[in-house]
């Protein structure tokens, strides 16, 4: 398609944390589509196009009446399927009056929205994000709404953790990351970067979490699911205790979680969490870890935030595309290849045609 955007539409994208969607109207822009979300009295989440059929006023400026949305301009009412159920000053309702209803589903503590062809919206395609369920792994994350960068820049960032050495020096950064070999593998929908740093001095954050002296084996197993979720299984264990072979009992294990949702071509919503399997009942630790990530500009994700937005500005000022890639970008490039594949399938020009004998 000539006007195809750089994000697939036939995919589930995180639109909100479940707890954010209550029986009230909440506006989001997902893949360039303005959406109004609310929770029905049945508990299900409804997602409608955020523009009245009549005069396009955002429905999110209106109000809920039961499980229906009343436009704040002329009072047209739309049900959770997007169908108009009331029009002022007439006895009938235009049969074609409706706003688009988007498939929405809740899983892994997030509300997922499908901005593309509803016929293809299979809930089984929701990314595996079970680390966020709050059961086996614990942690409290957040969202950078309207992060001012192309969602793919966040994926690049997470798929190559050598940046930790420079962006996050003093916490999780370490020279060892830049010298350890890594392996990149992929399937039709996933890409994985595997990096083991054997027998190293642990960086400050991990040294503190481990609470034990000595060298460690550190791992970063980064798992991308197209189009835009990334899960990084990370941790350290005392060297020689068998972590590379699968025994992590003498270590501490965390996972960074990222569901990245395009808002526009140059902005995105970044749903993040950092979860762990150690000291799971330690709520103070949960708060500390959250603050280590986002803390009024001083957390590690605040550091990424600044870099990503500056990078997007630079991209717009220097349209020298494509930018150059290095060996370290292999994971990001596989991720982008998978996204490009989805885009190609969506934007496929008309299928080859057999002249039918009609």
């Amino acid at each position, binding site marked *: 398609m000539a006007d195809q955007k750089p994000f697939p539409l036939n995919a589930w994208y995180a639109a909100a944390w479940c707890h954010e969607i209550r029986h009230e109207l909440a506006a989001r822009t997902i893949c360039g589509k303005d959406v109004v979300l609310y929770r029905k009295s049945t508990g299900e989440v409804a997602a409608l196009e955020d523009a009245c059929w009549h005069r396009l006023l955002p429905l999110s400026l209106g109000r809920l009446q039961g499980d229906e949305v009343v436009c704040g301009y002329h009072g047209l009412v739309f049900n959770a399927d997007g169908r108009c*159920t009331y029009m002022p000053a007439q*006895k*009938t*309702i*235009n049969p*074609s009056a409706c706003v688009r*209803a988007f498939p929405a589903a809740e899983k892994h503590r997030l509300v997922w929205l499908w901005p593309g062809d509803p*016929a293809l919206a299979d809930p089984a395609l929701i990314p595996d994000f079970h680390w966020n369920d709050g059961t086996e792994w614990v942690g409290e994350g957040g969202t950078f709404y309207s992060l001012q960068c192309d969602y793919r820049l966040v994926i690049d960032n997470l798929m190559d953790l050598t940046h930790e050495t420079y962006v996050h020096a003093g916490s999780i950064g370490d020279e060892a990351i830049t010298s350890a070999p890594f392996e990149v593998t992929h399937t039709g929908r996933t890409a994985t970067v595997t990096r083991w740093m054997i027998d190293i001095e642990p960086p400050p954050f991990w040294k503190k979490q481990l609470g034990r002296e000595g060298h460690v084996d550190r791992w970063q197993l980064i798992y991308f699911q197209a189009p835009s979720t990334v899960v990084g299984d990370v941790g350290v264990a005392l060297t020689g205790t068998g972590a590379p072979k699968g025994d992590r009992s003498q270590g501490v294990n965390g996972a960074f979680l990222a569901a990245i949702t395009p808002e526009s071509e140059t902005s995105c919503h970044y749903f993040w969490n950092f979860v762990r399997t150690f000291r799971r009942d330690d709520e103070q630790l949960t708060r500390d870890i959250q603050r280590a990530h986002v803390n009024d500009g001083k957390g590690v994700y605040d550091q990424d935030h600044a870099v990503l937005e500056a990078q997007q500005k630079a991209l717009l000022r220097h349209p020298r595309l494509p930018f150059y890639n290095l060996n370290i970008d292999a994971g990001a490039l596989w991720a982008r290849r998978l996204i490009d594949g989805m885009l190609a399938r969506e934007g496929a020009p008309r299928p080859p045609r057999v002249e*039918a004998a009609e």
Partner: protein
Amino acid sequence: MPAAPDWRRARIAATQDLTPDIRLLAVEPEGAFVAPTPGSHIQVGVQVEERADTRSYSVVDAGRDGLYRIAVKRLPTSRGGSRYMWSLAAGARLTVSAPANHFELALGRSHYTLVAGGIGITPIRSMALALAEAGADLRLIYAARTRADLAFADELSTLLGERLQLVVSEEGERIDLDATVATMPACGELYLCGPIGLIEAGKRVWAKAGRPAASLRFETFGSSGRYATLPFTVRIPRLGLEIPVPENRTMLDAMEDAGVAMIHDCRRGECGLCAVHILDAAGPVDHRDVFFSDEEKAANAKLCTCVSRLPGGVLTIDTADRAA
């Protein structure tokens, strides 16, 4: 205002006569192909006598091969669009819009009953194909005047088997809407396309059964009424005008041609903007819109000029062309 249609050049890839007066046209557009969703239509630029005009035709399938298939009924009393469409042979050039949808099919419902009357089968066919493919619980009731008029009947029968009910009025059969609605599950949706009488009856039965109004979906082409399409005369005493409305023109077009200032939007009898006051009618007013309620139509105080007519004679009206 509705978005301006995205016009593109196209050619007729093939034609096929489905019935003595329904012809299938496969239209191949140039440029990027926008796939039609079930219930959608394309607009086609037509030549009627010396005038360029547009007509809307429902797309009958998902166009997976990059073609828009439309089925056009040749109407002796039409406004001239069908005559033009029937003049097009394979290879002919024409102009079409990208698909738009005023009759959207919602997915994931527990049951669907589709009812088509006559050429109303066109959007219903695209819905039946999509629902059958999705494995939905559906039933299709399809009525026509004679058995020979039932376009697509054989293939629909193969596809749907027992789920298809054909109704031939010439053989004394009628769609039993009461029974149809009564046998639908509570959460079922009814999709209805056909002449205005069928739509009105459907709305009445639906309301009487206490079903939620939003679960009845319908589309009418604004081209069929209770009476024959005949020329008539519009008289506007205040403006001193007497305007002939030929059988192939709408009252709205004829009035605009005569210089009467009119506002309008949908041009298919939905929005009510083109309605005028009736002062006197020489015969029954043929209300073909879905804007007015049954009661309003019976009161005959106003009519929608884009679709409604008089079956001959003189219709005396007043327009908005006055100070207050």
